[in-house]
């Protein structure tokens, strides 16, 4: 005879994970999931991302790009996520994931096209086989799209993971909770990465939630939640590896809170000086991820002033190519707005398409 369960007790705790502090010193032994070669690769990717970011802001300031969201100071998260993922995993980004795009092979010129108001920027015309989603602007929607794809992998017994990113502000959204709840209930191969940069435009984390960590939100959904130092690329990478392998082997979802700080405006349309305490803001630069990784690499004789110089020269050339490709991209067809809306444009709307052509064609 089955009896009703009327009492439940449970206890929980949240772990904070760090391997490398802001001096570039290891706080525990380097994990076996990462080697020096990978760390150099990650450093180069993070450096390119930062330069891309500066370039994009300059393009916006000179009227050549629309509103653009910087990821300054948050490059470790994007790079670790991008590097840890396999090609067959599928990515569901928000809008501060430039480093991940770079490592997923998304053309960086596409990111500029996207913020430059061109749908081809979210289309990935160069890799039509890519299953990665474009940037999701309505906050937290992407969590559910990722859960849906994760269901498809589970249904087809594929060893693949869906990876979704979101800011800490986004974890106040219902869709975030609905996604983690379903991921738990259905044991989906889903990895949620929260970029906790502590600011949702002007709203600080203290006004966003009474939770001490974002990772603890996983507890309510019955899934694993981990907090990592989001400025420590080793920690983010390590936890990503763990979460991805777990997902791919059918052991369910993981929520990763990567704690960092937004040492930039929300977007180019924002002025963070209006609301971020300036002492806190300036102090955060000491903890940013590139500086500490370079310190670590130099201390271990893996990097030098000369290597830095060579890398910067190479990156500058790469960026020139990206920007030229973006600026010289031929204009799209006006009628594309009709031609990609449906698999086949319903007859009812042919008249409107002709109307558009008659005026501008």
């Amino acid at each position: 005879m089955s009896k009703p369960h009327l009492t439940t007790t449970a206890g929980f705790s949240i772990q904070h994970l760090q391997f490398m502090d802001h001096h570039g010193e290891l706080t525990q032994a380097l994990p076996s999931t990462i080697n020096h070669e990978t760390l150099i690769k990650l450093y180069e990717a993070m450096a390119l991302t930062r330069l891309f970011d500066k370039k994009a802001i300059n393009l916006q300031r000179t009227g050549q790009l629309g509103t653009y969201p910087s990821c300054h100071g948050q490059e470790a998260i994007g790079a670790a996520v991008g590097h840890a993922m396999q090609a067959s995993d599928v990515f569901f980004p928000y809008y501060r994931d430039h480093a991940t795009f770079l490592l997923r092979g998304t053309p960086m010129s596409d990111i500029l096209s996207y913020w430059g108001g061109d749908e081809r920027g979210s289309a990935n015309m160069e890799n039509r086989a890519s299953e990665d989603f474009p940037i999701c602007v309505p906050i937290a929607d992407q969590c559910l799209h990722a859960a849906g794809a994760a269901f498809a992998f589970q249904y087809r017994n594929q060893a693949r993971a869906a990876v979704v990113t979101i800011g800490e502000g986004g974890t106040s959204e219902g869709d975030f909770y609905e996604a983690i709840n379903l991921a738990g209930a259905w044991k989906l191969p889903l990895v949620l990465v929260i970029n906790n940069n502590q600011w949702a435009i002007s709203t600080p984390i203290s006004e966003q939630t009474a939770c001490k960590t974002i990772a603890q939100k996983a507890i309510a959904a019955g899934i694993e939640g981990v907090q990592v130092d989001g400025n420590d690329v080793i920690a983010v990478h390590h936890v990503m590896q763990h979460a991805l392998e777990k997902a791919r082997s059918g052991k369910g979802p993981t929520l990763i809170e990567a704690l960092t700080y937004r040492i930039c405006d929300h977007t180019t349309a924002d002025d963070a000086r209006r609301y971020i305490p300036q002492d806190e803001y300036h102090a955060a630069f000491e903890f940013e991820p590139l500086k500490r990784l370079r310190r670590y690499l130099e201390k271990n004789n893996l990097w030098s002033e000369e290597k830095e110089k060579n890398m910067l020269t190479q990156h500058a050339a790469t960026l020139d190519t990206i920007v030229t490709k973006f600026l010289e991209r031929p204009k799209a067809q006006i009628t594309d707005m009709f031609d990609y809306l449906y698999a086949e444009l319903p007859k009812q709307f042919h008249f409107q398409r002709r109307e558009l052509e008659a005026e501008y064609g």
Partner: protein
Amino acid sequence: MANITLVEAVNQALAYEMAHDENVIVFGQDIAKNGGVFRTTVGLLEKFGPKRVLDTPLAESMIAGITIGMAAQKLKPVAEFQFMGFIYPAVDHILNQASRLRNRTRGRLSCPAVFRAPYGGGIHAPEHHSESTESLFAHIPGLRVVIPSSPARAYGLLLAAIRNPDPVLFLEPKRIYRWVKQEVPDDGRALPLDKCFILREGRDITLITWGAMIKETLEAAEQLEQHGISAEIIDVATIKPIDFDTILQSVEKTGRCLIIHEAARHCGVGAEIAATIAEHGLMFLHAPIKRVTGYDTIMPYYKMEKYYLPSSAKIIATAKQLMEFA
């Protein structure tokens, strides 16, 4: 071949397509073990198993959101919302995501999904269970909106909706879920998603309607016939895109047009039909275009719902008025 109701036709279409395409996944609240609150999905769990027929947690935005991720992975998700009154948390995903995915990826990703929901009044249901808000969805570019009004059309249109490469909102008029029985061959034949159905041919006036209002409109047409008025009835069926060719041809023939819908009048789908007839068929008309619709009020609780829903008497009276124009 058995005589079946609209509910059973929905079930028959789902079962047919699931048997022929293993990418079809059916899910929603209480749809698996319980077979859905209207029993549209009854027996599917037993036939196709828990991997393809799933009860979801209780969260409508989630139901729509996962549909998009599944569809982009080339599954054919058929999501059920228990009542249309609860679909609104999902509108963000339907409007901002499902209907835009093809365009914003220039066809790299797409969303071949079906969102099903019972809609409309007249079954003495509680608050929020009786609205007809199809026009909210008909306004969304990239989305198709389909409303069947008979068992055969429910079967053929639902098959078409599932096979369609883009998202479809499939609204089921629950007042006529069990109104008539019809022989519906289970032959897997889909109906077009851009064609009206002429339910009755006539000379004098075109009655344009859809969903459960088919019932009152058919009754009205029979009585009008006794008064010597020959009414043609068009079931619009595909609310978006609308088959205006058929509508305009009919209006050209009859010269009179009455649009009947259960939804509120202001910006209802009837307004779009009236505007299009005015733009392209004004010279056919002997009389003004008229609408008999629900009022621009909140759908009353069920004790008063019959005063809100358009009656056959009102359809007859309005049609007679239109016949007075020479």
